Protein backbone atom coordinates (compact mmCIF):
# COMPACT_ATOMS: atom_id res chain seq x y z
CA UNK A 1 0.00 0.00 0.00
CA UNK A 2 1.66 3.20 -1.16
CA UNK A 3 2.26 5.92 1.37
CA UNK A 4 -0.95 7.95 1.81
CA UNK A 5 1.01 11.15 2.15
CA UNK A 6 2.58 10.45 -1.20
CA UNK A 7 -0.80 9.68 -2.78
CA UNK A 8 -2.17 12.90 -1.38
CA UNK A 9 0.76 14.88 -2.74
CA UNK A 10 0.32 13.37 -6.18
CA UNK A 11 -3.39 13.98 -6.14
CA UNK A 12 -2.92 17.54 -5.04
CA UNK A 13 -0.44 18.28 -7.77
CA UNK A 14 -2.88 16.74 -10.22
CA UNK A 15 -5.62 19.02 -8.94
CA UNK A 16 -3.45 22.08 -9.22
CA UNK A 17 -2.55 21.26 -12.79
CA UNK A 18 -6.24 20.69 -13.37
CA UNK A 19 -7.20 24.13 -12.13
CA UNK A 20 -4.72 25.84 -14.39
CA UNK A 21 -5.97 23.78 -17.28
CA UNK A 22 -9.56 24.52 -16.39
CA UNK A 23 -8.93 28.24 -16.73
CA UNK A 24 -7.72 27.80 -20.26
CA UNK A 25 -9.99 24.97 -21.29
CA UNK A 26 -13.11 26.77 -20.09
CA UNK A 27 -12.46 29.56 -22.56
CA UNK A 28 -11.89 27.03 -25.31
CA UNK A 29 -15.06 25.16 -24.47
CA UNK A 30 -17.09 28.35 -24.30
CA UNK A 31 -15.87 29.52 -27.69
CA UNK A 32 -16.61 26.16 -29.21
CA UNK A 33 -20.01 25.89 -27.60
CA UNK A 34 -21.21 29.23 -28.86
CA UNK A 35 -19.25 29.89 -32.05
CA UNK A 36 -18.63 26.34 -33.08
CA UNK A 37 -14.98 27.20 -33.59
CA UNK A 38 -12.19 25.09 -32.17
CA UNK A 39 -9.65 27.77 -31.41
CA UNK A 40 -6.19 26.28 -31.85
CA UNK A 41 -4.70 29.64 -31.02
CA UNK A 42 -6.11 29.53 -27.51
CA UNK A 43 -2.79 28.20 -26.32
CA UNK A 44 -1.08 31.13 -27.97
CA UNK A 45 -3.31 33.53 -26.08
CA UNK A 46 -2.35 31.75 -22.90
CA UNK A 47 1.33 32.05 -23.73
CA UNK A 48 1.01 35.72 -24.62
CA UNK A 49 -0.83 36.28 -21.36
CA UNK A 50 2.21 34.99 -19.54
CA UNK A 51 4.63 37.08 -21.58
CA UNK A 52 2.60 40.27 -21.23
CA UNK A 53 2.25 39.70 -17.51
CA UNK A 54 6.02 39.31 -17.32
CA UNK A 55 6.48 42.56 -19.19
CA UNK A 56 4.04 44.41 -16.99
CA UNK A 57 5.76 43.14 -13.87
CA UNK A 58 9.04 44.55 -15.22
CA UNK A 59 7.34 47.88 -15.79
CA UNK A 60 5.52 48.06 -12.49
CA UNK A 61 8.60 46.94 -10.61
CA UNK A 62 8.50 47.85 -6.96
CA UNK A 63 4.76 48.15 -6.57
CA UNK A 64 3.66 45.58 -3.95
CA UNK A 65 0.58 44.68 -5.93
CA UNK A 66 2.52 44.61 -9.18
CA UNK A 67 1.76 41.00 -9.88
CA UNK A 68 -2.00 41.37 -9.54
CA UNK A 69 -2.12 44.43 -11.74
CA UNK A 70 0.07 42.68 -14.26
CA UNK A 71 -2.17 39.62 -14.32
CA UNK A 72 -5.28 41.71 -14.80
CA UNK A 73 -3.59 43.88 -17.38
CA UNK A 74 -2.35 40.87 -19.30
CA UNK A 75 -5.78 39.27 -19.32
CA UNK A 76 -7.32 42.48 -20.61
CA UNK A 77 -4.65 42.86 -23.28
CA UNK A 78 -5.28 39.35 -24.54
CA UNK A 79 -9.01 39.97 -24.45
CA UNK A 80 -8.48 42.95 -26.73
CA UNK A 81 -6.30 40.85 -29.02
CA UNK A 82 -8.98 38.21 -29.16
CA UNK A 83 -11.60 40.79 -29.97
CA UNK A 84 -9.54 42.18 -32.81
CA UNK A 85 -8.85 38.73 -34.22
CA UNK A 86 -12.52 37.84 -34.15
CA UNK A 87 -13.84 41.10 -35.52
CA UNK A 88 -11.32 41.63 -38.25
CA UNK A 89 -10.48 38.13 -39.37
CA UNK A 90 -12.31 35.17 -37.93
CA UNK A 91 -15.81 36.38 -38.58
CA UNK A 92 -15.27 36.25 -42.34
CA UNK A 93 -14.71 32.53 -42.09
CA UNK A 94 -17.90 31.56 -40.30
CA UNK A 95 -19.73 30.95 -43.54
CA UNK A 96 -16.97 28.76 -44.85
CA UNK A 97 -16.16 25.18 -44.11
CA UNK A 98 -14.92 24.23 -40.68
CA UNK A 99 -11.53 23.44 -42.20
CA UNK A 100 -10.85 27.10 -42.92
CA UNK A 101 -11.54 28.09 -39.35
CA UNK A 102 -9.32 25.34 -37.99
CA UNK A 103 -6.47 26.24 -40.32
CA UNK A 104 -6.84 29.92 -39.56
CA UNK A 105 -6.50 29.41 -35.85
CA UNK A 106 -3.56 27.11 -36.54
CA UNK A 107 -1.95 29.81 -38.67
CA UNK A 108 -2.40 32.17 -35.74
CA UNK A 109 -0.31 29.84 -33.60
CA UNK A 110 2.53 30.11 -36.10
CA UNK A 111 2.32 33.86 -36.34
CA UNK A 112 1.87 34.57 -32.64
CA UNK A 113 4.54 32.19 -31.46
CA UNK A 114 7.15 33.77 -33.69
CA UNK A 115 5.94 37.23 -32.76
CA UNK A 116 6.54 36.32 -29.13
CA UNK A 117 10.03 35.12 -30.00
CA UNK A 118 10.84 38.38 -31.68
CA UNK A 119 9.75 40.43 -28.68
CA UNK A 120 10.88 38.27 -25.80
CA UNK A 121 13.50 35.99 -27.29
CA UNK A 122 13.76 32.26 -26.94
CA UNK A 123 15.07 32.00 -23.42
CA UNK A 124 13.21 31.08 -20.29
CA UNK A 125 11.52 33.84 -18.37
CA UNK A 126 9.81 33.80 -15.03
CA UNK A 127 7.89 35.93 -12.62
CA UNK A 128 8.43 35.85 -8.92
CA UNK A 129 5.52 34.80 -6.79
CA UNK A 130 3.67 37.68 -5.22
CA UNK A 131 5.02 38.25 -1.69
CA UNK A 132 1.67 37.46 -0.07
CA UNK A 133 1.74 33.99 -1.51
CA UNK A 134 5.40 33.18 -1.34
CA UNK A 135 5.27 30.76 1.54
CA UNK A 136 4.14 27.20 2.04
CA UNK A 137 2.22 25.18 4.58
CA UNK A 138 2.16 21.60 5.67
CA UNK A 139 -1.08 19.97 4.71
CA UNK A 140 -1.53 16.33 5.59
CA UNK A 141 2.18 15.80 5.63
CA UNK A 142 2.98 17.50 2.34
CA UNK A 143 4.49 20.91 1.92
CA UNK A 144 2.07 22.88 -0.22
CA UNK A 145 3.13 26.24 -1.63
CA UNK A 146 0.61 28.98 -0.88
CA UNK A 147 0.48 29.91 -4.51
CA UNK A 148 -0.75 26.45 -5.39
CA UNK A 149 -3.40 26.70 -2.71
CA UNK A 150 -4.45 29.98 -4.20
CA UNK A 151 -4.85 28.42 -7.62
CA UNK A 152 -6.68 25.45 -6.15
CA UNK A 153 -9.22 27.81 -4.66
CA UNK A 154 -9.31 30.10 -7.66
CA UNK A 155 -10.37 27.35 -10.00
CA UNK A 156 -13.68 26.57 -8.36
CA UNK A 157 -14.19 30.27 -7.63
CA UNK A 158 -13.98 31.10 -11.29
CA UNK A 159 -16.13 28.12 -12.12
CA UNK A 160 -18.77 29.39 -9.76
CA UNK A 161 -18.50 32.94 -11.05
CA UNK A 162 -18.85 31.64 -14.55
CA UNK A 163 -21.86 29.57 -13.64
CA UNK A 164 -23.52 32.58 -12.08
CA UNK A 165 -22.78 34.57 -15.19
CA UNK A 166 -24.29 31.93 -17.43
CA UNK A 167 -27.33 31.13 -15.37
CA UNK A 168 -28.25 34.30 -13.54
CA UNK A 169 -27.69 37.06 -16.03
CA UNK A 170 -29.53 37.99 -19.19
CA UNK A 171 -26.35 37.92 -21.20
CA UNK A 172 -25.64 34.49 -19.86
CA UNK A 173 -28.98 33.25 -21.03
CA UNK A 174 -28.19 34.44 -24.53
CA UNK A 175 -24.88 32.62 -24.41
CA UNK A 176 -26.55 29.41 -23.37
CA UNK A 177 -29.22 29.81 -26.01
CA UNK A 178 -26.62 30.47 -28.66
CA UNK A 179 -24.89 27.26 -27.68
CA UNK A 180 -28.12 25.39 -28.31
CA UNK A 181 -29.34 26.98 -31.50
CA UNK A 182 -27.54 29.81 -33.22
CA UNK A 183 -29.97 30.36 -36.05
CA UNK A 184 -32.92 30.62 -33.76
CA UNK A 185 -31.21 33.26 -31.72
CA UNK A 186 -30.57 35.41 -34.77
CA UNK A 187 -34.18 35.01 -35.76
CA UNK A 188 -35.18 36.29 -32.34
CA UNK A 189 -33.44 39.55 -33.05
CA UNK A 190 -30.42 39.09 -30.84
CA UNK A 191 -27.30 40.69 -32.24
CA UNK A 192 -25.55 37.41 -32.82
CA UNK A 193 -22.35 38.90 -34.19
CA UNK A 194 -21.89 41.06 -31.11
CA UNK A 195 -22.55 38.02 -28.98
CA UNK A 196 -19.90 36.06 -30.82
CA UNK A 197 -17.34 38.78 -30.35
CA UNK A 198 -18.16 39.07 -26.65
CA UNK A 199 -17.82 35.35 -26.13
CA UNK A 200 -14.53 35.25 -27.97
CA UNK A 201 -13.27 38.18 -25.92
CA UNK A 202 -14.30 36.50 -22.70
CA UNK A 203 -12.65 33.26 -23.71
CA UNK A 204 -9.46 35.09 -24.62
CA UNK A 205 -9.54 36.95 -21.31
CA UNK A 206 -9.63 33.64 -19.48
CA UNK A 207 -6.77 32.28 -21.53
CA UNK A 208 -4.67 35.37 -20.90
CA UNK A 209 -5.48 35.25 -17.22
CA UNK A 210 -4.52 31.60 -17.08
CA UNK A 211 -1.19 32.37 -18.67
CA UNK A 212 -0.51 35.25 -16.35
CA UNK A 213 -1.37 33.24 -13.26
CA UNK A 214 0.70 30.24 -14.23
CA UNK A 215 3.82 32.34 -14.82
CA UNK A 216 4.98 32.31 -11.19
CA UNK A 217 4.58 28.54 -11.06
CA UNK A 218 6.01 27.48 -14.40
CA UNK A 219 8.69 28.93 -16.62
CA UNK A 220 7.62 31.00 -19.60
CA UNK A 221 9.10 29.36 -22.66
CA UNK A 222 8.38 29.17 -26.37
CA UNK A 223 6.46 25.97 -27.04
CA UNK A 224 4.17 26.38 -24.05
CA UNK A 225 1.43 27.34 -26.49
CA UNK A 226 1.49 24.04 -28.35
CA UNK A 227 1.91 22.04 -25.17
CA UNK A 228 -1.10 23.57 -23.48
CA UNK A 229 -3.48 23.45 -26.43
CA UNK A 230 -3.11 19.72 -26.80
CA UNK A 231 -3.84 19.30 -23.10
CA UNK A 232 -6.80 21.66 -23.34
CA UNK A 233 -8.22 19.67 -26.24
CA UNK A 234 -8.01 16.50 -24.23
CA UNK A 235 -9.78 18.16 -21.32
CA UNK A 236 -12.67 19.54 -23.32
CA UNK A 237 -13.12 16.31 -25.23
CA UNK A 238 -13.28 14.27 -22.05
CA UNK A 239 -15.62 16.68 -20.38
CA UNK A 240 -17.70 17.44 -23.41
CA UNK A 241 -17.15 20.17 -25.96
CA UNK A 242 -19.35 23.07 -25.00
CA UNK A 243 -20.22 21.84 -21.55
CA UNK A 244 -19.03 24.03 -18.73
CA UNK A 245 -19.03 21.64 -15.81
CA UNK A 246 -17.82 19.02 -18.21
CA UNK A 247 -14.67 21.04 -18.74
CA UNK A 248 -14.21 21.30 -14.99
CA UNK A 249 -14.69 17.60 -14.54
CA UNK A 250 -12.50 16.85 -17.52
CA UNK A 251 -9.72 18.99 -16.11
CA UNK A 252 -9.88 17.24 -12.75
CA UNK A 253 -9.85 13.80 -14.34
CA UNK A 254 -7.02 14.74 -16.65
CA UNK A 255 -4.98 16.08 -13.79
CA UNK A 256 -5.36 12.86 -11.82
CA UNK A 257 -4.70 10.60 -14.81
CA UNK A 258 -1.54 12.51 -15.60
CA UNK A 259 -0.40 12.49 -12.00
CA UNK A 260 -0.93 8.81 -11.41
CA UNK A 261 -0.29 7.72 -14.96
CA UNK A 262 3.31 8.68 -14.51
CA UNK A 263 3.54 6.28 -11.58
CA UNK A 264 1.80 3.33 -13.15
CA UNK A 265 3.08 3.63 -16.71
CA UNK A 266 6.13 5.85 -16.54
CA UNK A 267 6.99 5.18 -20.12
CA UNK A 268 3.52 5.69 -21.40
CA UNK A 269 2.11 8.62 -19.49
CA UNK A 270 1.94 10.75 -22.59
CA UNK A 271 0.27 7.82 -24.27
CA UNK A 272 -2.36 7.44 -21.57
CA UNK A 273 -3.92 10.86 -21.98
CA UNK A 274 -4.28 10.50 -25.73
CA UNK A 275 -5.66 7.03 -25.22
CA UNK A 276 -8.17 8.49 -22.81
CA UNK A 277 -9.16 11.08 -25.38
CA UNK A 278 -9.55 8.42 -28.05
CA UNK A 279 -11.59 6.18 -25.78
CA UNK A 280 -13.96 9.01 -24.95
CA UNK A 281 -14.35 9.94 -28.61
CA UNK A 282 -15.04 6.34 -29.53
CA UNK A 283 -17.47 5.46 -26.82
CA UNK A 284 -19.04 8.76 -25.97
CA UNK A 285 -17.99 11.49 -28.36
CA UNK A 286 -19.98 14.14 -26.62
CA UNK A 287 -17.89 13.67 -23.53
CA UNK A 288 -18.99 13.02 -20.01
CA UNK A 289 -21.33 15.94 -19.64
CA UNK A 290 -21.90 17.14 -23.17
CA UNK A 291 -25.08 16.81 -25.17
CA UNK A 292 -25.47 13.72 -27.34
CA UNK A 293 -24.70 14.47 -30.96
CA UNK A 294 -27.40 14.30 -33.58
CA UNK A 295 -27.48 10.94 -35.29
Amino acid at each position, binding site marked *: MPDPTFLFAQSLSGLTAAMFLFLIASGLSLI*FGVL*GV*LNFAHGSFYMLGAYVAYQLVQVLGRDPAAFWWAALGAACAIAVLGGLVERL*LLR*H*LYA*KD*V*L*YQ*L*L*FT*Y*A*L*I*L*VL*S*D*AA*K*VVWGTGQLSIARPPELAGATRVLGTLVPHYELFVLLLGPAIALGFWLLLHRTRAGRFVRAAALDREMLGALGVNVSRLYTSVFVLGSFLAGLGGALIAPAKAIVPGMD*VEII*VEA*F*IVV*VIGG*LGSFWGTFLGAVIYGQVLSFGILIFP*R*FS*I*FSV*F*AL*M*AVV*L*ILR*PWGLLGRP*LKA
Partner: protein
Amino acid sequence: MSARARVPWGLVGVLAALSVPFLGSRYYTFVATDVAILALFAVSLNLLLGYTGLVSFGHAAYFGVGAYTTGLLMKKAGVPFVLAFPAAGVLAGLLALVFGFFCVRLTKIYFAMLTLAFAQIVWAICFKWNDLTGGEQGMPEIPYPDLAWLERLPLVGELRTSDHFYLLTVVLVALCFWLLRRVVGSPFGRILTTIRENPERAEFIGVHVRRWELLAFVLAGAFAGLAGGLFGIFNRGVFPDFIYWTKSSEVLIMAILGGMGYFYGPAVGALVLLVLNQQITSYTEYWPFVLGSILIVLLFAFPGGLVGALDAGRRRLLRLGRA
Protein backbone atom coordinates in the same frame (compact mmCIF):
# COMPACT_ATOMS: atom_id res chain seq x y z
CA MET B 1 -13.52 20.24 -76.43
CA SER B 2 -10.93 22.63 -77.82
CA ALA B 3 -9.30 21.82 -81.11
CA ARG B 4 -5.91 22.05 -79.48
CA ALA B 5 -4.82 18.76 -77.96
CA ARG B 6 -4.95 18.71 -74.17
CA VAL B 7 -1.50 18.98 -72.66
CA PRO B 8 -0.59 15.78 -70.84
CA TRP B 9 0.59 17.60 -67.75
CA GLY B 10 1.28 14.37 -65.96
CA LEU B 11 3.68 13.15 -68.58
CA VAL B 12 5.35 16.54 -68.82
CA GLY B 13 5.80 16.56 -65.08
CA VAL B 14 7.35 13.11 -65.00
CA LEU B 15 9.78 13.91 -67.80
CA ALA B 16 10.74 17.17 -66.14
CA ALA B 17 11.26 15.35 -62.88
CA LEU B 18 13.39 12.66 -64.46
CA SER B 19 15.72 15.23 -65.94
CA VAL B 20 16.68 16.85 -62.63
CA PRO B 21 19.71 14.64 -61.84
CA PHE B 22 21.25 15.59 -65.15
CA LEU B 23 21.47 19.17 -63.94
CA GLY B 24 24.33 17.87 -61.89
CA SER B 25 23.58 19.46 -58.55
CA ARG B 26 23.30 17.31 -55.46
CA TYR B 27 21.14 19.96 -53.90
CA TYR B 28 18.55 19.97 -56.68
CA THR B 29 18.25 16.21 -56.50
CA PHE B 30 17.83 16.42 -52.77
CA VAL B 31 15.05 18.97 -52.96
CA ALA B 32 13.38 17.20 -55.83
CA THR B 33 13.28 13.91 -53.94
CA ASP B 34 11.78 15.65 -50.97
CA VAL B 35 9.17 17.32 -53.17
CA ALA B 36 8.23 14.12 -54.96
CA ILE B 37 7.68 12.20 -51.74
CA LEU B 38 5.77 14.94 -50.00
CA ALA B 39 3.70 15.51 -53.13
CA LEU B 40 2.53 11.92 -52.89
CA PHE B 41 1.83 12.40 -49.19
CA ALA B 42 -0.23 15.51 -49.87
CA VAL B 43 -2.15 14.01 -52.78
CA SER B 44 -2.99 10.97 -50.66
CA LEU B 45 -4.45 13.27 -48.04
CA ASN B 46 -6.47 15.04 -50.68
CA LEU B 47 -8.32 11.84 -51.43
CA LEU B 48 -9.86 12.40 -48.02
CA LEU B 49 -9.88 16.16 -47.94
CA GLY B 50 -10.67 17.37 -51.42
CA TYR B 51 -12.63 14.42 -52.74
CA THR B 52 -14.49 13.06 -49.72
CA GLY B 53 -14.65 16.20 -47.62
CA LEU B 54 -13.06 14.68 -44.54
CA VAL B 55 -10.58 16.74 -42.54
CA SER B 56 -7.94 14.51 -41.02
CA PHE B 57 -5.52 16.02 -38.55
CA GLY B 58 -3.64 12.78 -38.11
CA HIS B 59 -2.54 11.78 -41.58
CA ALA B 60 1.11 11.89 -40.54
CA ALA B 61 0.52 8.76 -38.50
CA TYR B 62 0.28 6.63 -41.66
CA PHE B 63 3.23 8.38 -43.20
CA GLY B 64 5.24 7.64 -40.10
CA VAL B 65 4.09 4.03 -39.83
CA GLY B 66 5.09 3.50 -43.44
CA ALA B 67 8.50 4.99 -42.73
CA TYR B 68 9.04 2.83 -39.65
CA THR B 69 7.84 -0.30 -41.46
CA THR B 70 10.21 0.05 -44.37
CA GLY B 71 12.99 1.22 -42.11
CA LEU B 72 12.61 -1.66 -39.67
CA LEU B 73 12.28 -4.27 -42.36
CA MET B 74 15.27 -3.08 -44.29
CA LYS B 75 17.56 -2.20 -41.42
CA LYS B 76 16.80 -4.84 -38.83
CA ALA B 77 15.42 -7.67 -40.90
CA GLY B 78 17.39 -7.17 -44.06
CA VAL B 79 14.28 -7.39 -46.19
CA PRO B 80 14.84 -6.12 -49.72
CA PHE B 81 13.25 -2.87 -50.79
CA VAL B 82 10.99 -4.55 -53.31
CA LEU B 83 9.13 -6.16 -50.40
CA ALA B 84 9.70 -3.54 -47.73
CA PHE B 85 8.21 -0.76 -49.83
CA PRO B 86 4.78 -2.32 -50.46
CA ALA B 87 4.77 -3.50 -46.86
CA ALA B 88 4.76 0.13 -45.82
CA GLY B 89 1.56 0.69 -47.75
CA VAL B 90 -0.04 -2.48 -46.45
CA LEU B 91 0.70 -1.77 -42.79
CA ALA B 92 -0.30 1.86 -43.04
CA GLY B 93 -3.50 0.79 -44.76
CA LEU B 94 -4.27 -1.72 -42.03
CA LEU B 95 -3.73 0.89 -39.36
CA ALA B 96 -5.99 3.25 -41.28
CA LEU B 97 -8.61 0.50 -41.36
CA VAL B 98 -8.56 0.16 -37.58
CA PHE B 99 -8.45 3.86 -36.81
CA GLY B 100 -10.77 4.80 -39.64
CA PHE B 101 -13.43 2.43 -38.44
CA PHE B 102 -13.85 4.54 -35.33
CA CYS B 103 -13.25 7.90 -36.93
CA VAL B 104 -15.88 7.68 -39.66
CA ARG B 105 -18.60 7.26 -37.07
CA LEU B 106 -18.03 10.86 -36.07
CA THR B 107 -18.63 14.10 -37.91
CA LYS B 108 -16.53 17.11 -38.72
CA ILE B 109 -14.79 18.43 -35.63
CA TYR B 110 -15.08 15.21 -33.68
CA PHE B 111 -13.71 13.28 -36.63
CA ALA B 112 -10.77 15.69 -36.80
CA MET B 113 -10.12 15.37 -33.09
CA LEU B 114 -10.18 11.59 -33.10
CA THR B 115 -7.77 11.46 -36.03
CA LEU B 116 -5.54 13.76 -34.02
CA ALA B 117 -5.83 11.63 -30.90
CA PHE B 118 -5.01 8.41 -32.75
CA ALA B 119 -2.05 10.01 -34.45
CA GLN B 120 -0.71 11.23 -31.12
CA ILE B 121 -1.10 7.74 -29.67
CA VAL B 122 0.99 6.37 -32.53
CA TRP B 123 3.51 9.14 -31.94
CA ALA B 124 3.67 8.41 -28.23
CA ILE B 125 4.24 4.71 -28.90
CA CYS B 126 7.02 5.40 -31.37
CA PHE B 127 8.50 7.94 -29.03
CA LYS B 128 8.64 5.58 -26.11
CA TRP B 129 9.12 2.11 -27.54
CA ASN B 130 12.87 2.25 -27.54
CA ASP B 131 13.44 -1.38 -28.37
CA LEU B 132 11.42 -1.41 -31.53
CA THR B 133 11.52 2.08 -32.86
CA GLY B 134 14.58 3.53 -31.26
CA GLY B 135 12.39 5.81 -29.20
CA GLU B 136 13.17 9.47 -29.14
CA GLN B 137 16.39 8.96 -31.06
CA GLY B 138 14.62 7.25 -33.88
CA MET B 139 16.27 4.85 -36.30
CA PRO B 140 19.19 6.34 -38.11
CA GLU B 141 21.05 4.86 -41.05
CA ILE B 142 18.39 3.17 -43.06
CA PRO B 143 20.18 1.50 -45.95
CA TYR B 144 19.54 2.42 -49.53
CA PRO B 145 17.82 -0.22 -51.60
CA ASP B 146 20.02 -2.29 -53.85
CA LEU B 147 20.36 -0.07 -56.86
CA ALA B 148 23.32 -1.77 -58.49
CA TRP B 149 21.23 -2.71 -61.49
CA LEU B 150 20.81 0.97 -62.30
CA GLU B 151 24.54 1.41 -62.64
CA ARG B 152 24.53 -0.90 -65.60
CA LEU B 153 22.10 1.25 -67.59
CA PRO B 154 23.59 3.50 -70.32
CA LEU B 155 22.65 7.10 -69.59
CA VAL B 156 21.85 6.73 -65.99
CA GLY B 157 24.76 4.61 -64.86
CA GLU B 158 27.19 7.42 -64.16
CA LEU B 159 24.91 9.22 -61.70
CA ARG B 160 25.30 9.12 -57.94
CA THR B 161 23.43 6.75 -55.66
CA SER B 162 21.21 9.54 -54.40
CA ASP B 163 20.34 10.31 -58.00
CA HIS B 164 19.52 6.65 -58.59
CA PHE B 165 17.27 6.63 -55.60
CA TYR B 166 15.66 9.82 -56.83
CA LEU B 167 14.87 8.28 -60.21
CA LEU B 168 13.41 5.25 -58.51
CA THR B 169 11.33 7.56 -56.33
CA VAL B 170 10.03 9.46 -59.33
CA VAL B 171 8.98 6.25 -61.04
CA LEU B 172 7.26 4.90 -57.94
CA VAL B 173 5.56 8.19 -57.13
CA ALA B 174 4.39 8.55 -60.73
CA LEU B 175 2.95 5.06 -60.54
CA CYS B 176 1.10 5.92 -57.34
CA PHE B 177 -0.20 9.12 -58.90
CA TRP B 178 -1.43 7.15 -61.89
CA LEU B 179 -3.27 4.73 -59.61
CA LEU B 180 -4.77 7.50 -57.52
CA ARG B 181 -5.81 9.34 -60.65
CA ARG B 182 -7.65 6.24 -61.84
CA VAL B 183 -9.35 5.95 -58.47
CA VAL B 184 -10.64 9.51 -58.37
CA GLY B 185 -11.78 9.25 -61.98
CA SER B 186 -13.69 6.07 -61.28
CA PRO B 187 -17.28 5.54 -60.17
CA PHE B 188 -15.89 5.06 -56.66
CA GLY B 189 -14.26 8.45 -56.84
CA ARG B 190 -17.44 10.05 -58.10
CA ILE B 191 -19.38 8.58 -55.21
CA LEU B 192 -16.81 10.07 -52.84
CA THR B 193 -17.52 13.51 -54.24
CA THR B 194 -21.21 13.01 -53.63
CA ILE B 195 -20.39 12.32 -50.01
CA ARG B 196 -18.39 15.51 -49.88
CA GLU B 197 -21.14 17.55 -51.47
CA ASN B 198 -24.10 16.23 -49.55
CA PRO B 199 -23.77 13.18 -47.32
CA GLU B 200 -27.49 13.07 -46.61
CA ARG B 201 -28.34 12.99 -50.28
CA ALA B 202 -25.60 10.46 -50.94
CA GLU B 203 -27.16 8.20 -48.37
CA PHE B 204 -30.38 8.44 -50.26
CA ILE B 205 -29.00 7.35 -53.55
CA GLY B 206 -28.10 4.17 -51.78
CA VAL B 207 -24.57 4.95 -50.65
CA HIS B 208 -23.50 3.50 -47.33
CA VAL B 209 -21.62 6.67 -46.50
CA ARG B 210 -19.58 5.30 -43.61
CA ARG B 211 -18.29 2.37 -45.59
CA TRP B 212 -17.17 4.54 -48.46
CA GLU B 213 -15.53 7.01 -46.11
CA LEU B 214 -13.67 4.14 -44.50
CA LEU B 215 -12.46 2.91 -47.88
CA ALA B 216 -11.25 6.37 -48.77
CA PHE B 217 -9.54 6.56 -45.39
CA VAL B 218 -7.74 3.26 -45.94
CA LEU B 219 -6.60 4.16 -49.44
CA ALA B 220 -5.38 7.55 -48.31
CA GLY B 221 -3.54 5.96 -45.42
CA ALA B 222 -1.96 3.28 -47.61
CA PHE B 223 -0.58 5.77 -50.10
CA ALA B 224 0.65 7.97 -47.27
CA GLY B 225 2.42 4.90 -45.95
CA LEU B 226 4.12 4.36 -49.30
CA ALA B 227 5.28 7.96 -49.25
CA GLY B 228 6.59 7.43 -45.74
CA GLY B 229 8.46 4.32 -46.79
CA LEU B 230 10.31 6.34 -49.38
CA PHE B 231 10.92 9.20 -47.00
CA GLY B 232 12.56 7.07 -44.35
CA ILE B 233 15.21 6.01 -46.83
CA PHE B 234 15.61 9.46 -48.31
CA ASN B 235 16.00 11.03 -44.90
CA ARG B 236 18.58 8.39 -44.00
CA GLY B 237 16.62 7.79 -40.81
CA VAL B 238 13.18 7.52 -39.29
CA PHE B 239 12.20 9.69 -36.36
CA PRO B 240 9.07 10.13 -34.25
CA ASP B 241 8.56 13.72 -35.26
CA PHE B 242 7.36 12.36 -38.64
CA ILE B 243 4.18 11.60 -36.73
CA TYR B 244 3.75 14.64 -34.50
CA TRP B 245 0.55 16.50 -35.20
CA THR B 246 2.34 19.52 -36.58
CA LYS B 247 3.44 17.32 -39.48
CA SER B 248 -0.19 16.51 -40.15
CA SER B 249 -0.98 20.21 -40.30
CA GLU B 250 1.94 20.79 -42.66
CA VAL B 251 0.51 18.37 -45.18
CA LEU B 252 -2.94 19.92 -44.79
CA ILE B 253 -1.39 23.28 -45.57
CA MET B 254 0.28 21.85 -48.66
CA ALA B 255 -3.04 20.57 -49.90
CA ILE B 256 -4.81 23.88 -49.33
CA LEU B 257 -1.93 25.93 -50.64
CA GLY B 258 -1.90 24.05 -53.90
CA GLY B 259 -5.65 23.75 -54.13
CA MET B 260 -7.67 20.86 -52.80
CA GLY B 261 -10.13 21.05 -55.67
CA TYR B 262 -7.55 19.79 -58.15
CA PHE B 263 -5.86 16.44 -58.35
CA TYR B 264 -2.33 17.82 -58.67
CA GLY B 265 -3.08 20.82 -56.46
CA PRO B 266 -1.50 19.35 -53.33
CA ALA B 267 1.56 18.32 -55.35
CA VAL B 268 1.99 21.92 -56.44
CA GLY B 269 1.49 22.94 -52.84
CA ALA B 270 4.21 20.58 -51.70
CA LEU B 271 6.61 21.97 -54.28
CA VAL B 272 5.89 25.59 -53.43
CA LEU B 273 5.98 25.05 -49.71
CA LEU B 274 9.26 23.17 -49.76
CA VAL B 275 10.97 25.63 -52.04
CA LEU B 276 9.68 28.56 -50.03
CA ASN B 277 10.84 26.85 -46.86
CA GLN B 278 14.33 26.36 -48.22
CA GLN B 279 14.58 29.91 -49.48
CA ILE B 280 13.16 31.62 -46.46
CA THR B 281 14.94 29.64 -43.79
CA SER B 282 18.21 30.72 -45.36
CA TYR B 283 17.32 34.34 -44.65
CA THR B 284 15.46 34.18 -41.39
CA GLU B 285 14.60 31.81 -38.59
CA TYR B 286 11.01 33.02 -38.53
CA TRP B 287 9.70 30.55 -41.08
CA PRO B 288 6.58 29.76 -38.97
CA PHE B 289 5.63 33.41 -39.06
CA VAL B 290 5.91 33.51 -42.84
CA LEU B 291 4.06 30.23 -43.21
CA GLY B 292 1.29 31.39 -40.92
CA SER B 293 0.91 34.66 -42.78
CA ILE B 294 0.84 32.94 -46.15
CA LEU B 295 -1.77 30.56 -44.84
CA ILE B 296 -3.93 33.39 -43.58
CA VAL B 297 -3.72 35.24 -46.89
CA LEU B 298 -4.57 31.99 -48.63
CA LEU B 299 -7.61 31.29 -46.52
CA PHE B 300 -9.05 34.72 -47.08
CA ALA B 301 -7.99 35.60 -50.59
CA PHE B 302 -7.28 32.34 -52.40
CA PRO B 303 -9.45 29.61 -50.97
CA GLY B 304 -8.96 27.62 -54.14
CA GLY B 305 -5.22 27.56 -53.57
CA LEU B 306 -2.57 28.36 -56.12
CA VAL B 307 -3.94 26.10 -58.81
CA GLY B 308 -7.39 27.51 -58.17
CA ALA B 309 -6.09 31.04 -58.58
CA LEU B 310 -4.27 30.07 -61.78
CA ASP B 311 -7.37 28.36 -63.09
CA ALA B 312 -9.55 31.36 -62.35
CA GLY B 313 -7.00 33.62 -64.01
CA ARG B 314 -6.91 31.40 -67.06
CA ARG B 315 -10.69 31.41 -67.33
CA ARG B 316 -10.78 35.15 -67.05
CA LEU B 317 -8.22 35.45 -69.83
CA LEU B 318 -10.28 33.14 -72.01
CA ARG B 319 -13.34 35.24 -71.43
CA LEU B 320 -11.43 38.39 -72.28
CA GLY B 321 -10.11 36.69 -75.38
CA ARG B 322 -13.58 35.85 -76.53
CA ALA B 323 -14.97 39.31 -75.90
